[in-house]
């Protein structure tokens, strides 16, 4: 049986009525003991009998064509084959559902996958790949420099009112241009795959975020039927967008395995991950804002410039949050794109907001400054009543509480003017930024089974990429079925199980959680029936059912297992729906060197019902720390001549390390979003990043009076202006 819900209208808050009391609690992850003891098994850690090992070959030129000279290596020890058919140019975009671009011996960027070498051992494959002779025909017409682009193509644009006129007439206005560098997801687990064929069917153990889509993408890339593809990703060592779509490892492993007739494992080298997996685009953003003499915004303009490879169906939605965060009648948006011979652009955690909110929230800070209004107060004054473009109501929006409660807890009232607070050679300052992230519900299915022994099983091809899926889905099932959480087992990451939304866009917990909720709700109806009461009267707690005048343990009530599938689908609703929050940061800027140290941060977040207080907090910590990285250190650097990534490893691409991260506080504002889904929750993983970096750079200005327009805010961009 399937319990289906199209989310067309508000649903009752059943999770506020149930009595087990495990939902929202800070329950430790059930898979935790496996992870901390090294027993959780990731993609590259599976073996198969007679398995061969593959190693990717990367393009050594930025543009042109190539021929593989297999004879150059065929006598090397362990050589089994070198294959370049079906090669994908880069990883698939999120929810693409089809093959990524596949090129026939053509090169469009340096580092592109051009072949896979297979040998008996990893060491042999690596050596052969490095020894392989490739005959290149170079095309010297290479576009590698963002700043040299002249032929920008106008993409989506939107106009409302008259922006120029509003700015000309405004009491206060800001016109600032910001640049953000490309970012790499840099998940700690490199992409990997083990493929094996059984007749027409291929099984791939891979590291992927969205198995339902990924199955179709693999099938399309190989030219086979999706029914013949099984994917397994029970543990994923981080994704952050980099594993939304299939990658060169998974396709190459399947191709090589088909040629050789034996299982093949391919693991991307860290350099491959930097080059072959989609990055966040570099952006240039022009933000124009205006306000009247009361500090009410009258105009909002946000334009962006970005690049990608040819034929990539993705553009960073830079202005997403700008559309609904602040009021102002006159609005203008524009997107301009160009093609470069550089690694592909795609989704990296919070695509859009991660960089769009850096620019918007810096510009708002500048506007508050020229208007002479405290930046928290300025934001509070500009929260619109309804969506400023379409007039829709907000489904839930606790932005004001987030700003007010956050300011209170952070000690915002202690904030001084630039250069006013000094400790030794350090200037100290505080900054604030709003957070906003559109909330999305995606179709998702799960099967829930209640067994007569009082245990339950949740099954779905949903993934847990560190986001807490194992914990959350178990808590939802336990809460609904009235069971202790240790009686519930959650099985994930296998396309043989019901198809879930996948992990992406911060919709995973709410979408897959809703499907589990629906499956369990159908089981509740059956139990009520057996107990002889209505589902509304039914109480389930610690394995005992109560309702009407009956009270019976589930072990007595059930003769066999009850299995129900939950199926959630998004519906049509005329509401503006997003998570909101506020970030606060205190930084120290060295008056001699311009070095910035973040001293403390506080995130005040509202994301509907929090499903697990511990994993939600960890997601926000992650967002805050990614904010520190984007503000201060993270920058993919491309050679302007060839477009190749100069810093293609973890020594030169600087993700925050432990000492970069100070004490972080997370405060959740209690909220329910009745329009979001039947469990009233909204996404948190990307909301935590939205605006976080801007709070840091706004704090830098408040500390030392220097605004950095070219991210990241490295010392060389600060100390000349001190």
């Amino acid at each position: 049986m399937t319990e289906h819900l199209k989310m067309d209208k508000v649903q009752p808050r059943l999770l506020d009525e149930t009595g087990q009391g495990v939902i929202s609690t800070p329950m430790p992850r059930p898979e935790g003991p496996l992870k901390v003891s090294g027993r959780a098994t990731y993609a590259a850690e599976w073996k198969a009998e007679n398995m061969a090992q593959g190693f990717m070959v990367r393009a050594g030129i930025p543009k042109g064509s190539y021929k593989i000279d297999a004879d150059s290596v065929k006598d090397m020890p362990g050589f089994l084959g070198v294959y370049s058919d079906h090669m994908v140019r880069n990883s698939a975009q999120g929810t693409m559902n089809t093959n990524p671009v596949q090129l026939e011996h053509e090169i469009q960027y340096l580092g592109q996958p051009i072949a896979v070498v297979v040998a008996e051992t990893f060491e042999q494959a690596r050596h052969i790949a490095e020894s392989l002779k490739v005959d290149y025909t170079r095309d010297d017409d290479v576009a590698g420099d963002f700043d040299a682009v002249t032929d920008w193509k106008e993409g989506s644009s939107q106009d409302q009112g008259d922006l120029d006129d509003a700015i000309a007439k405004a009491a206060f206005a800001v016109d600032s241009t910001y640049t953000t560098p490309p970012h790499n997801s840099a998940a700690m687990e490199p992409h990997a795959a083990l493929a094996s064929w059984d007749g027409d069917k291929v099984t791939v153990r891979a590291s992927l975020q969205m198995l339902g889509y990924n199955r179709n993408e693999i099938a399309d890339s190989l030219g086979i039927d999706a029914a013949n593809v099984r994917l397994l990703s029970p543990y994923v060592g981080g994704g952050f967008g980099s594993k939304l779509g299939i990658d060169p490892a998974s396709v190459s492993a399947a191709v090589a395995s088909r040629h050789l007739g034996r299982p093949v494992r391919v693991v991307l080298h860290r350099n491959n991950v930097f080059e072959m997996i989609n990055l966040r685009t570099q952006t240039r953003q022009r933000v124009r804002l205006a306000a009247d003499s009361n500090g009410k915004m009258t105009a909002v303009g946000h334009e962006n410039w970005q690049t990608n490879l040819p034929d990539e169906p993705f553009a960073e939605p830079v202005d997403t949050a700008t559309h609904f965060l602040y009021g102002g009648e006159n609005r203008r948006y524009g997107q301009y794109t160009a093609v470069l011979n550089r690694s592909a652009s795609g989704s990296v955690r919070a695509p859009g907001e991660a960089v769009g909110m850096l620019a918007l929230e810096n510009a708002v800070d500048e506007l508050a400054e020229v208007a002479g209004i405290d930046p928290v107060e300025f934001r509070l004054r500009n929260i619109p009543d309804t969506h400023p473009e379409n007039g829709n109501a907000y489904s839930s929006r606790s932005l004001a509480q987030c700003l007010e409660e956050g300011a209170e807890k952070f000690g915002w009232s202690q904030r001084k003017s630039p250069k006013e607070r000094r400790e030794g050679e350090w200037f100290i300052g505080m900054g604030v930024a709003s957070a906003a992230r559109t909330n999305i519900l995606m179709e998702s299915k799960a099967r829930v089974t209640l067994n007569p022994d009082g245990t339950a099983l949740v099954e779905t091809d949903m993934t847990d990429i560190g986001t807490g899926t194992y914990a959350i889905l178990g808590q939802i099932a336990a809460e609904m079925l009235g069971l202790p959480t240790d009686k519930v087992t959650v099985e994930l990451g296998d396309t043989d199980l019901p198809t879930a939304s996948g992990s992406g866009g911060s919709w995973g917990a709410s979408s897959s959680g809703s499907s589990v909720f629906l499956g369990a709700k159908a089981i509740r109806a059956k139990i009520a029936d057996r107990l002889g009461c209505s589902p509304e009267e039914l109480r389930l707690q610690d394995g005992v059912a109560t309702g009407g005048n009956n009270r019976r343990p589930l072990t007595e009530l059930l003769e066999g297992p009850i299995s129900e599938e939950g199926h959630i689908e998004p519906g049509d609703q005329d509401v503006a729906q997003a998570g909101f929050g506020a970030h606060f940061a205190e930084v120290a800027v060295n008056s001699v060197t311009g070095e910035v140290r973040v001293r403390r941060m506080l995130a005040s977040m509202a994301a509907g019902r929090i499903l697990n207080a511990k994993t939600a907090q960890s997601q926000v910590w992650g967002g805050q720390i990614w904010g520190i990285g984007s503000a201060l250190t993270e920058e993919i650097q491309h050679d302007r001549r060839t477009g190749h990534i100069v810093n293609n490893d973890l020594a030169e691409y600087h993700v925050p390390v432990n000492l970069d991260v100070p004490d972080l506080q997370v405060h959740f504002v209690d909220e329910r979003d009745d329009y979001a889904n039947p469990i009233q929750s909204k996404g948190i993983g990307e909301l935590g990043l939205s605006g976080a970096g801007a709070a840091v750079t706004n704090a830098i200005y408040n500390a030392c009076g220097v605004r950095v327009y070219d991210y990241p805010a490295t010392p060389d961009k600060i100390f000349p202006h001190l």
Partner: protein
Amino acid sequence: MPTLGSAMKITLNVNGEARSLDVDPRVALLDALRTHLDLTGSKKGCDHGQCGACTVLVNGRRINSCLTLAVMHEGDEITTIEGLGEPGSLSPLQKSFVKHDGYQCGYCTPGQIMSAKGMIAEFNMGWPSNVTDDLGTAPDFTEAEIKERMSGNLCRCSAYPGICHAIREAAPDEGTIEEAAE
């Protein structure tokens, strides 16, 4: 000199057990553990000595096992995450990581825990770090000391606050270097 790709016979003492294996001399200690001995708890994040995911203890000291060859460790005592504890009998550090959510995806976690183990031993021996003010006296177990000494272990999930909480709480229950090598 062995020819390219030919195997060498070595014995490693891993988690208290003598393990004999034939390895290509190019095999890194990390790959010997993961591929040859099926101890996949030690992770490969970079294969370059840049991330710390592969941290193990060799004779009680933490090292990046991707940066050293298996054949260089004949007779050495190697401790991997599998040797610290297993579900049901986790070590204090392992339990504390679960309690404080000192991870998310779990991929950097074995390296973090092994590194923390080695770091505590370094503390016990009075080793200073880059943030130690006074080199003449034994350093205090401060937040800054923990953070500095754990900065060779990247966590892209950014579980650093949980990692620090977990280490602080477990530290008193973790032993000295002699005990760690047992």
